[in-house]
């Protein structure tokens, strides 16, 4: 465990000196926190959306609006779209960090001296994985906290405030988020084991957002309805997926093939 912490500290002290990585890690949470708050601010407090009634909302979504006024339901509908975008953070931030941290070791030729130390592959990947995942999870949670407090400060009605910290949101942020981060790191490790350029690794690893974007557009178009049970199923599915991806990523990260085939 000590060596995992050693790798973690080194990664953070090095990776966060890279302005590109730092910019990505800082920009996404700021943007994804500001946008829903701006939306809530623009649509105003109760009644701000005018004469919207729950009957104006998609029937399947209206069922989630129990206890909310029509305009609150509309606001809830809009910010729920952002819940999925919040999930971009635990997906994208680790990809950026992991791509630079693993492929970067190869391109700067630091991997061989590192592998020559008595560190195990699991310790190395755990250190690098946590270094990539933890900032993403922290950024997601912090952004959500700022959003929840911001919504209250903007004077959002108590009914909507309660909805924003309901089991669906909490499960999504505190359970699905970390699971997505693990999936993202595993995917980035797999890609990084096969390419030599950090930017190529980052771009290829970025494909990990496609399922989430499909979910987002499915929800926007009304094909999919994000609710507590769907979020829970997502968590379960991710748990299984993470186990498989992690095992595969460790399998792919073979010292010998990395040292002898990476050029």
């Amino acid at each position, binding site marked *: 465990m000590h060596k995992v912490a050693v790798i973690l500290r080194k990664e953070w002290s090095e990776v966060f000196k*890279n302005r590109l990585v730092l910019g990505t890690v800082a920009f996404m949470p700021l943007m994804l926190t500001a946008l829903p708050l701006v939306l809530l601010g623009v649509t105003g407090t109760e009644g701000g959306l005018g004469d919207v009634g729950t009957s104006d909302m998609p029937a399947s979504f209206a069922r989630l609006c129990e206890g909310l006024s029509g305009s609150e339901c509309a606001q809830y509908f809009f910010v729920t779209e952002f819940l999925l975008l919040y999930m971009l953070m635990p997906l994208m931030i680790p990809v950026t960090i992991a791509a630079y941290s693993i492929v970067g070791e190869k391109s*700067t*030729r630091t991997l*061989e*001296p590192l592998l020559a130390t*008595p560190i195990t592959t699991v310790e190395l990947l755990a250190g690098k994985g946590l270094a990539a995942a933890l900032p993403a999870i922290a950024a997601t949670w912090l952004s959500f906290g700022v959003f929840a407090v911001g919504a209250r400060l903007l004077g959002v009605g108590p009914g909507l405030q309660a909805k924003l910290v309901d089991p669906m949101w909490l499960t999504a942020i505190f359970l699905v988020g970390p699971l997505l981060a693990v999936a993202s790191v595993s995917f980035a490790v797999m890609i990084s084991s096969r390419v030599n350029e950090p930017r190529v690794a980052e771009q290829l690893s970025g494909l990990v957002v496609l399922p989430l974007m499909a979910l987002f557009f499915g929800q926007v178009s009304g094909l999919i309805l994000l609710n507590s049970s769907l979020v829970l199923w997502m968590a379960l599915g991710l748990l299984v997926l993470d186990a498989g991806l992690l095992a595969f990523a460790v399998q792919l990260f073979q010292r*010998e093939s990395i040292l002898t085939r990476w050029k």
Partner: protein
Amino acid sequence: MIVTERLSKSFGKLQAVQDLDLRVEAGEVFGFLGPNGAGKTTTVRMLSGLIGPTSGRAWVAGCEVGKQDGDLRRKVGILTESPGLYDRLSAERNLGFFADLYEVSDIAVQVEHYLRLLGLWDRRHEPVGGFSKGMRQKLAIARAMLHEPQVVFLDEPTSALDPEAARLVREFIGELKQEGRAIFLCTHNLDEADRLCDRVAVFRTRLLALDTPAALRRQLFGRSVVFHLREIAPAYLACLQALPAVRAVEAVDRRLVVSLEDPERDNPRLIRALVEAGAEIQFVGELKRTLEDVYLRLLEQSDTGKPS
């Protein structure tokens, strides 16, 4: 400290190392010489527990390669072909990180010791990205020594260094030898290998020769004496060729290069024979063969299939 038995490594159809048998003792500087692509790096990677052999066995500092690699890596230090340092981190942070991974007990003391020893202490807080090639090389050498390894693999340790720094590193290698460590030195600098190494191996996929530099010179070239004459005549060559002590004679410009078993014993007879044949001798000296001569001869023999 290092023992290999028919150690081999192949990558698919490519045979990188074939049936390598060698033994390196504690307190020995062992030169591992060979052209690019000869399999030197693959050998070092096997012996430092980075990759496993395809066949054969090897033991380094008492640990069997491929079976006790974790323990082995604790006992060996390696200077890789490229220094491989974290450019955004300071020199001190770079060494501290590796010392931590090598489970060094007093990290600060060890880091300071090697930074001072290699003349980098005053630059310890600076990011390594701003260091010269030589400074980076010295820092990488310090990194290889942090955990006080019993066996040290050095790949081209003086390649990027100015003469002063190269001398410092050579003296440092001498100190490591005095401390009883085994030094496995890969270098293309044959003059340096000649000066530093107790024994050298010339290697190209397989071992071509292994002995002390002096013994290899003797085996391949014997000893040669050069006679500088005022002028050359065929009779001079003939009179020398008639002597039983002479193994070979070659005329080069106004010089005769003569291969002998024992110049101290045979030179007076050769001089007498030449004078009696009418030669006017200006100088006599021994032709010093270099390790480069040995190396090139061995590779040439390997190319032509002649036994070494």
